[in-house]
Each structure stands twice: as C-alpha cells, then as structure tokens.
C-alpha cells in the first residue's frame, strides 16, 4: 500500500456521528416538512416588504394631503377673521363717523341758536 492509498483510506474511514446528530436531523426534517411552513415564511417576507413600502407611500401621501388640508384650513380661518375684522372696522368707523358728525352738528345748531335766543 502506497502512502497515498494509506492517506486516502484514513480520510474515507467510517466515523461515529456526533452526540444528538440524528435527533437534530430528524427535528429539522419534521419542521421543514410541515405543510406550508416554509411557504408561509417566504410569503410573509415578500408581503411584509411590500406592505412596508405601501405603508410608507400611504403615510407620505397622508402627510402631504393632511398638511395641505391644515394649511387650507388655516388660510380659510385667516380669511374669515380678516373679513370679520374688515366688517368690524367698517362698522366701527361708521358709528364713529356718524357720532362725530352728529355731535358737531348739534354744536353748530347750538351756536346758531345761541345768538338768536339773545335777541
């Protein structure tokens, strides 16, 4: 027997399996051969990646639409407040102007009547 044959025989000689090897192989075989288990995990990985992408896209759309709505609501409210303030300014100036002129007119009448009453 040549040295090469000797090395080959040593390399290919039978060895006992490590402790618990057979049990681990059986357990793994059982797990992987359960109906749909692997497929479910594969499906979930696929779906979850898609769901995440869709959820992200939906969130972005919601933020953009929501932000736009909030902005529009703010502008509407500001416009309403501005219009109300405008109406109030007109009303206030109306009253102030009328009262100012009424008072002035009364004083003018008093001044007109005063000389004639002395006659």
């Amino acid at each position: 027997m040549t040295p090469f044959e000797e090395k080959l025989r040593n390399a290919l000689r039978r060895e006992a399996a490590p402790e618990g090897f057979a049990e681990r192989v059986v357990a793994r075989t059982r797990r992987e051969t359960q109906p749909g288990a692997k497929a479910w995990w594969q499906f979930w990985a696929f779906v979850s990646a898609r769901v995440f992408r869709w959820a992200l896209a939906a969130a972005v759309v919601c933020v953009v639409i929501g932000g736009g709505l909030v902005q529009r609501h703010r502008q509407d409210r500001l416009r309403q407040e501005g219009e109300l303030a405008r109406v109030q300014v007109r009303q206030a100036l109306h009253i102030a102007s009328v009262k100012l002129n009424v008072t002035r007119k009364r004083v003018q009448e008093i001044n007109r009547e005063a000389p004639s009453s002395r006659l």
Partner: protein
Amino acid sequence: MKVTKGRSKSAAILFGALLMGAFVPAAFGQNPKLDIQNLEPLAKKASEVVDVNLDGALLRLAGKFMTDEDDREGLEIIKNLKGIYVKNFEFAKPNEYSQADVEAIRGQLQTPSWSRIVSAQNKPEGETSEIYLMTASDGGTVLGMAIIDAQPKELTVVNIVGPIDMDKLSQLEGKMGIPRLGEVGKESKKVEGHHEKSK
C-alpha cells in the same frame, strides 16, 4: 465681589428704569385705551348691541382685506391706529343704563392728557354727546379719541387709539356704506348745550 456689586447695581438701575417706563405713562394717563368693560352687562338689557374690539394686529389684518375702492378712505384712517373699540347699545325703553355707567367712562377722561373738545347737551331730552382727544405733550400729535353719546334709549362709546384724523373720519360720511347725516334722522332734534374747547 466688587464687580458683582457693580453688576447688581446696574441691573437694579435698569430694572428701575424699565419699571418707570412701564408705569410713568400710566401714572400720567398717557394710555389712550379706555377700560369700557364695565359696560358689558348692558348687553343683556339692550335690544341691539354693537361691540367692536379691534387691536393693532386685527386692524392690520383687516387692512389686508380692505381692497375695495370704497375701503380706501377707511384704510387710510386705520393705517396708523393701534386700536378701535366701540360699544353701542340700543334699548327698547329709556333709562336702561345708569349715569354711573357713563361716569365710569367719563372718569377715565378726566386726566390732564385728555381734553374735551366738544360737548353738546340736550337736558330736557337727556342727551349728551362728548368728544375727547388725547394729544401728546408737544400738543400736535393726536394719541387717541373718545366719543361718548348718551341718549335715553342709546348709549355709544367709541375709543380710537392712535393718531386719528378727525376730519378724515368725519368725511367718511356717505362713503363705505356710511349714511349721510341727513339720513341718520337724529340731527333735527332741538338741542341746548355748549361748545367747550380744551382746557
């Protein structure tokens, strides 16, 4: 230690100056804004109420929306104002408000910085109209205006804070939807009274 004392002294002086700055104008009645909140309860008795409270920010906001052609004069008037406060109560029957209500406002106008420039009284009818102006110490700049118009069935208090041009305000009549005096229907009443120039 000395540095700390010096700093605290400076801080005390600064604080004192700020305090004086805050209180001296008030002490001398330099604030043209009147407290007219005491009239609030009259709203319950009144048949018609106009209550306008516009501070500087609201006036500026209103100004942005006064874009119509007939708003031009009004915009010019409110341009530099810091506030417009109006309370107008119309009552279904006379004597729904007390003289104390009016006196509470009038009392605030008895400071040296306010001058009653016009007063018209119709004693038999129980009508009083007064116009007050607050001017700056230089005598030229108008800081505010107040109008009290007390009639048996109507009480009006107008308080304008800021430099108001009375002539421009008066000329608004017939503009901005403001009726001319002849249309108001109150000018024909015979009145007695006096014209009092600022003291």
